[in-house]
């Protein structure tokens, strides 16, 4: 762990790119697999937060410098917003800033601050669901035209707006588990093996 300079070097930027790629690939893979079953799709943020925890923890331990988390946030935001959910870019960046500040408060050393920052950062895994907030009326409307008002009403009932809060909640819970698991894995494997 090199803590000599707190500025991102080109080397760190390449590592950041690599881990961002791993992060988004896993994120999308999980969403795709779970997307086959609509109910599972709703708990995808929870599962993702757990799985992505180890990638996040490994990454921030490898690049313990200001800006690293923001870069990851920008990458995740950019990729998740490509589906048209532009809100998610802003959401991810905001989470990134908060997470960055938390780690900064821990002076890039405290393990607790890393885990805590991930609890916040993990909320990014529900960002595609922001589409529920503004695309739903259009969707319901289009369903009504296609399948009738009954169907549209059922659908409406199943996706109330407070579901977003639930999603944020489970994402944070997943984030806590993921952060703890990630930090355990890191200690168990990569620190023991001297990789980070």
């Amino acid at each position, binding site marked *: 762990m*090199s803590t000599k300079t707190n500025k991102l070097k080109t*080397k760190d930027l390449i590592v950041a790119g690599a881990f961002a790629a791993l992060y988004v690939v896993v994120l999308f893979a999980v969403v795709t697999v779970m997307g086959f079953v609509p109910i599972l799709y709703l708990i995808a943020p929870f599962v993702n937060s757990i799985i992505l925890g180890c990638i996040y923890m490994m990454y921030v331990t490898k690049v313990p410098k200001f800006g690293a988390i923001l870069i990851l946030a920008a990458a995740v935001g950019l990729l998740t917003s490509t589906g048209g959910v532009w809100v998610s870019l802003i959401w991810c960046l905001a989470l990134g800033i908060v997470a960055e500040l938390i780690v900064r408060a821990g002076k890039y050393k405290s393990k607790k601050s890393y885990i805590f920052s991930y609890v916040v950062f993990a909320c990014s895994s529900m960002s595609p669901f922001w589409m529920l907030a503004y695309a739903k009326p259009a969707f319901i409307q289009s369903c009504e035209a296609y399948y009738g008002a009954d169907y549209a009403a059922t659908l409406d009932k199943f996706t109330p707006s407070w579901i977003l809060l639930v999603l944020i909640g489970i994402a944070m819970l997943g984030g806590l588990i993921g952060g703890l698991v990630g930090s355990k894995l890191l200690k*168990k*494997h*990569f620190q*023991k*093996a*001297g*990789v980070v």
Partner: protein
Amino acid sequence: MIELKHVTFRYENAPENVYSIHNINLTIQRGECVVLCGRSGCGKTTITRLINGLIPHYYEGELSGFISVNGVEIRSQQLSKISQYVGSVFQNPRSQFFNVDTTAELAFGCENQGLPKEDVLERIEEAANRFSLNGLLNRSIFELSGGEKQRISCASVYAVHPDIFVLDEPSSNLDPASILQLKDVLQKLKAEGKTLVISEHRLYYLLDIADLFVWLDQGEIRSVYTREEILAFSPAQISAMGLRALDLNQVDLATESKRQKHTGHEFTFQNLDCKISGHSVLHIQSLRIPTGEIIAVIGHNGAGKSTLAGCLCGIRKHTGKVLYDKTEWTAKKRLKESYMVMQDVNRQLFTESVRDEVTLNIPEEQAEQAENILRQMGINELADCHPLALSGGQKQRVAIASALCAGKKILIYDEPTSGLDYESMRSACALIREVSKRTELSLVITHDLEFIMSCCTFILHIDHGTVKAFYPLDSTGKARVKKEFLSHKENEEEL
């Protein structure tokens, strides 16, 4: 001109007093070709990193002494400046491309320097002509063979027009035909008056090019030989220095024929056919492989060797049957009975200690013999270490031990000796022979003639997705396989 004076270096994560190189003094004149050779870990790679500036600008540590390249002290120079006159080619073609297509990769170095578009295109054209790359332009790097990748990386370095080329074990992932192509590239560079510094333990392809051979041992320069001096050594002396054979023609003289005992069983392939996106990449009408043998699978890159291995061990979908004597083994059965030791062993280590690794997912009663197997593999003292913290050779042993503990019957090795020095290669040989006594079938995908001669008992030659030949490695077989390797004319690029 490159000058190293009293250079000593320790990597920052290395223990105190463990120096990678110690008091190195070396002067390389303009236009010379110098080969740094020696065992793995002798410090040859470290010296290449000193010349291209990765030490101290990328790999940090404790550095003392004086290093100058073209009259400039390397420490005072930025890496991006150094890159204009020192070009580097690395060992692993998989991780040295910044781009995903070849033309962009050729342009990369020049673009970094901010050369105008027209100049860059001209230089790509020049490099492509120089190294006959026209068939390789505009291709995805993921579809190139190792040899093709290595040619692209040489050419992309060339496009920047550096005076000095630094190559770190460039041949370790290449098949014989690709090594010849590499040799051709190096010869052209030398003819242009470029300075070449090559770290390598496989010397046979460098004999016509190199001016000096610097032999390192334990971080120090032991001696410097001219071409004549190194040719005067006997094969045994070369082996004792940890180096690979100088002349592939001589390799079997030192080793005796060691046919395995026939166990009387056999594996039979019937009408095996494997398709990848509609194209048949492997078709075997009928093939009978006796058990208990160590079979070297040879052939060009892309001939279908890995596909064959994948089909045999049941991870590749195929039509046709595989029989063990008279009973059919389904893909599922074969997957259960087989194990592949991959080239990059990192991908197949999962747990936190060597003991956990070998006992992973196997029944209790089999687990009891784990200690025994660890001892036989010579890794019992490492039982509590983390597998990822071990050296490459040790990792390989852990992987093999885990296969033995699980009672696997078919063992497949994917280029187990690529990048190994002489001694490591010999110990891999001994290991594979030992293991073959406990399994039904050992299949080794390899390009290493020296290894084949000292370890294998049968040759399976795959070409264009079919079996070109299958023969025992007796004296006629040895002559035949040697001919196969030595008469290697550069294959026309298949476009």
